[in-house]
């Protein structure tokens, strides 16, 4: 585990803020796509790509890289934005999201873009692929320090295939598999508690032989500590349930499930009119919800 100084944490937080701004820009340009999940997972993605992963943006196929498997493919704007900010491709390309001929498909396509480990969108299959990768790695190198980070969401956990994969991961004691759940508590149709309650979630994973941690999904230090511990668990796969606030970073979008599947410009109008949504979101992010002057972060 790598210790993060206060200065490093501040720098990661600012990077996450830049990534959130990119997410708003690309979604409002695309005029379709998901907002809440990408915004609330920006901290996790930033920490992974700027603080945790063994990877090389200039050599995305590097054999020794850690793998990030995005299972809930619909939050790909955060993956694309993070990859671009990490140097996998130009940030300008983010504005091609969902357009004809773009490498940034509406849901990730492995063959299209460097840094994408698998195509995903139909929910439930990413965890199985992460399990397969981890199994394959163990055949080649039982002492491998390569990690397989599978990102999933609480709505996705309703897919039966997730639990098929969890059973196999638990059976095989896949210690280099680290699952991170975006526990924002909502999905397209409403609050997860109403659509299909997932609690007791930690106990569910424990029953499948996972080491389980629950953390504040917006605390770089808590996330970093949890990932460090998960890396150290040797006899089990790990899951980190990251408690997040949907649409984190744009307070006027936060905690409202109607932002799950709508881009700025098409979201609920009770707090911000449609034509102002992108502009307001960017302003909120640039000033950290009005708490700082824009000059401080430029």
């Amino acid at each position, binding site marked *: 585990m790598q210790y993060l100084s206060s200065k490093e944490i501040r720098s990661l937080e600012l990077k996450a803020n830049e990534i959130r701004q990119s997410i708003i820009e690309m979604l409002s340009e695309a005029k379709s796509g998901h907002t809440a999940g990408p915004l609330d997972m920006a901290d996790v993605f930033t920490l992974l790509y700027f603080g945790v992963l063994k990877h090389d943006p200039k050599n995305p196929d590097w054999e020794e890289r850690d793998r990030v498997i995005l299972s809930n493919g619909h939050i790909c704007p955060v993956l694309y934005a993070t990859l671009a900010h990490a140097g996998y491709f130009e940030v300008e390309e983010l504005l091609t999201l969902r357009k004809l001929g773009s490498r940034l498909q509406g849901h990730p396509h492995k063959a299209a873009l460097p840094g994408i480990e698998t195509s995903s969108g139909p929910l439930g299959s990413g965890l*199985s*692929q992460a399990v*397969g990768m*981890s*199994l394959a790695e163990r*055949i080649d190198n039982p002492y491998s320090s390569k990690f397989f980070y599978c990102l999933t969401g609480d709505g996705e956990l309703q897919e039966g*295939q997730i639990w098929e994969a969890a059973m*196999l991961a638990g059976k095989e004691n896949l210690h280099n598999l680290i699952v991170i759940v975006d526990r924002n508590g909502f999905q397209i149709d409403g609050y997860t508690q109403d659509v299909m309650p997932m609690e007791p979630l930690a106990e569910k994973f424990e029953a499948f032989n996972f080491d389980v941690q629950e953390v504040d999904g917006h605390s770089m230090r808590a996330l970093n500590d949890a990932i460090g511990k998960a890396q150290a668990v040797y006899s089990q796969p790990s899951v980190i349930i990251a408690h997040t606030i949907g649409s984190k970073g744009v307070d006027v979008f936060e905690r409202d499930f109607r932002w799950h599947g709508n881009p700025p410009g098409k979201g609920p109008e009770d707090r911000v009119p449609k034509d102002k949504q992108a502009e307001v979101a960017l302003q909120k992010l640039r000033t950290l919800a009005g708490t700082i002057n824009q000059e401080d972060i430029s």
Partner: protein
Amino acid sequence: MFANHLQPDLNPETVERSPTRIGYGDGLLEAGKRDERVVALCCDLTESTKTHLFANEFPERFVQVGVAEQNLASVGSGMAAMGKIPFIASYAMFSPGRNWEQIRTTIAYNNANVKIAGAHAGVSVGPDGATHQAIEDIAIMRALPNMIVIAPADEHEARKVALAAAKHEGPVYFRLGRSATPTVTTPDSPFVIGKAERMFTRDEAHEKKVGIVSTGSLLFNSLMAAEQMNKEGIGASVLHMATIKPLDTEALIEFAKEHGKIVTVEEHQINGGLGGAVAECLGENCPTKMVRVGVQDVFGESGEPDELIEHFGMGIDSIIEKAKSIV
């Protein structure tokens, strides 16, 4: 006359019989010996899919996935992403039947190097009945980009298919049968992915002609039907289309032009399978009068394998009858 590389004894009473899944088991084991990247995954059907031969020899390269076919497909995809050559096996009704979307997204769309063995395909599964008789698998797999689709004729060809699949870079689906079916080819008969093979050539003295295009283990019934028709004065030939996708269009068009009438024979729904593939090709390139032998848009039922083949109109006499209806 029969192609010269076939078994010397093709008498229905005495011909050797063996299930295609036996050939798969042998081929997988051999592929595993030749290439250490080969791994095998199975869903609680290790012995009946003959995956146990590989599992016993290479336990560290075998993954028992349990009864979870969706997981099977995607775990296979993940292993392929790490450079392995996974062979995933279950009954065709469950894989690709149940896990078609996982195959589509995680194997075909990713162009993952996964080989999918669908065992117990066709009505010849027998007493287990309709729930276990996959007769739609060719249709659903043929619709997928990047996917190769093969129905081997017998044990020897199934072994060659497994070996060829291991060497082919990309997804491959092949269907296997449960029951012992006639062994028509020999270890030396040619098999190349995407290439059709002429197995019986008509007597040129006959004026009336018909071309039979078969796939899978109904090759034997097709050969018997062709031999009988030639005795009756109809110049019937058999083109064995082991690979349904990509279809050997060149051989098919030439065959259709030579015979003028085409019968397709498959242990599968007549919609979307070999009959569909042949009709699409000929319709676009060489419109030809044709008739399709196969399951006529109904579900199967329990019974003995041979009984069911007859009952659903895929026996030798049924093929002859259908062929005569267009000659």
